[in-house]
């Protein structure tokens, strides 16, 4: 029995760790898309900025907390930079620019070796309280820390969207000409939403680096953006609770399917593709039968009319 727990516990910890990171990452997207209606197809770029900034600053001798704050701030700042030219235009421009940006950034990370060590990636950076916590308990500690951070982000966002501020964001999602005609500075609100969403992704990036202990440009492929989209749509657009549960479901599925690997006649790379096929199929079924997602409200569904 004890041995069994010894086996299952690290496994569960891993799922929960990754889920909590992705929940935070997707909560940022949910603020942008679910509540403000911004289509960001390059969310992973802000994850990468958060991770690389934290890690590189820490390696250059800055304290960990300062490095994380800088990572969050820089991710937010890039959200600001991308928002300035695109948010006055139609919503699809943000989608085009962000997806382009995330790929450009990945190639910069890959090729500017003097700065980022390119495809070798970076490891050997500090992790929070690594000298204090015994190694065998470290992941448990990290999990507690991440869940606490997730809690703070979750409740802050809940507070935000249930405030008059959140009401303006929702009205922009519905039809931005209305808040505009009523005297709200729509552009400024969209920009703020993008900055906050990006900063949250930056925080998730730092957390991802702490968990992986090693980052390289391949950690930040476009698929990560779409994992966040899957999480938001699965859990329910415009539902923070749904986003957290969506992250848990997705990662349970990703790791759960490892167990069936021996029963299916696939190589491991084929298995990866097979997983995505299943996810695609499940999403299609979800859209047909419960388009609002698991926790979304049909009346609040932002996917279609």
């Amino acid at each position: 029995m004890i041995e069994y727990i010894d086996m299952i516990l690290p496994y569960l910890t891993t799922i929960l760790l990754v889920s909590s990171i992705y929940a935070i990452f997707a909560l940022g997207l949910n603020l942008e898309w679910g509540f403000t209606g911004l289509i960001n197809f390059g969310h992973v770029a802000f994850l990468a900025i958060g991770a690389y900034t934290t890690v590189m600053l820490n390696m250059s001798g800055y304290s960990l907390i300062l490095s994380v704050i800088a990572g969050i701030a820089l991710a937010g700042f890039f959200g600001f930079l991308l928002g300035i030219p695109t948010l006055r235009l139609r919503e699809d421009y943000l989608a085009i620019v962000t997806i382009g940006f995330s790929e450009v950034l990945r190639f910069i990370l890959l090729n500017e070796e003097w700065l980022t060590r390119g495809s070798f990636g970076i490891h050997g950076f500090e992790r929070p309280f690594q000298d204090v916590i015994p190694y065998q308990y470290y992941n448990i500690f990290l999990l507690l820390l991440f869940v606490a951070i997730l809690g703070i982000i979750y409740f802050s966002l809940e507070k935000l969207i249930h405030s008059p501020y959140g009401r303006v964001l929702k009205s922009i999602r519905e039809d931005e000409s209305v808040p505009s005609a009523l005297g709200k500075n729509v552009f400024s609100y969209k920009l703020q939403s993008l900055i906050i969403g990006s900063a949250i992704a930056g925080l998730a990036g730092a957390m991802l680096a702490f968990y992986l202990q090693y980052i390289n440009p391949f950690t930040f492929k476009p698929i990560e953006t779409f994992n966040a989209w899957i999480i938001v749509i699965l859990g329910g657009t415009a539902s923070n609770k749904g986003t957290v549960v969506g992250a848990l479901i997705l990662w349970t599925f990703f790791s759960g399917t490892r167990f069936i690997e021996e029963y299916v006649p696939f190589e491991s790379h084929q298995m990866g593709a097979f997983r995505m096929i299943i996810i695609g199929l499940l999403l299609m079924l979800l859209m047909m039968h419960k388009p609002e997602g698991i926790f979304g409200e049909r009346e609040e569904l932002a996917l279609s009319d």
Partner: protein
Amino acid sequence: MHYLTDQVVKLDILSVRNLKKHFGGVKAVDGCSLKIDAGTVVGLIGPNGAGKTTMFKLISGFEGGSGEIMFKGRRIDKLPPFKIARCGMVRTFQIPHALTKMTVLENLMLAPNIQCGEQIWNIWLRRKKIKEQEKLIKDKSQKILEFFEILHLEDEYAGALSGGQKKLLEMARAMMIDPSLMMLDEPFAGVNPTLARKISGYIEELRESGMTFLIIEHDIPAITKISDKIIVMNEGKIMAEGVPEEIKQRQDVLDVYLGGEG
């Protein structure tokens, strides 16, 4: 002196000079000038494509054109829509823009400006003030919903409302910012006669309280009944302007627009 400026402001709340907007070769609005006195109802009529809605967009800042627009003594033609709205001008849309995935009450509570809780840091720093303000705004919303007789729908999602109810919702929402000038784009279109009479009643009641209206409308009997002045547009130009009785008699207006009706 103060009295004098007050008077000037009161006389014409909105004045438009030589307003122009071209879409390629189409002159949607072609050198229009008009003045609207405070506390009056002005009807803007004309055949389809006359440029009425474009005129609305230009005045409310949703389109950029050339010409001069003065509102309450302030030049507004270069301002973005949200700043114009903050000056006290609010417009509704030809097709009602209800925020369908928000409740009726939320639709109204969104409207008032300078809400403390619309600044992000205040959500954490000034909770008490936000709470007080929310209560006031809610009370006001409910009063206005009651005025428009849709209070019983306050918790419904706006998407569930009928077309006519959405029109009322839009007027109610516009009322929340206490506008000095309300611009309505076809308030009677697609509305049943009873509801249309009700809307007319509201407009007259609000005019009594000092509000000014500029209304685009195709329902000639309805608009002539409530208007102090009618402006007729045709092919981007203002072709006639005057009291309703006078307009109804004009042969050129009858020819382009009213046809046999007059």
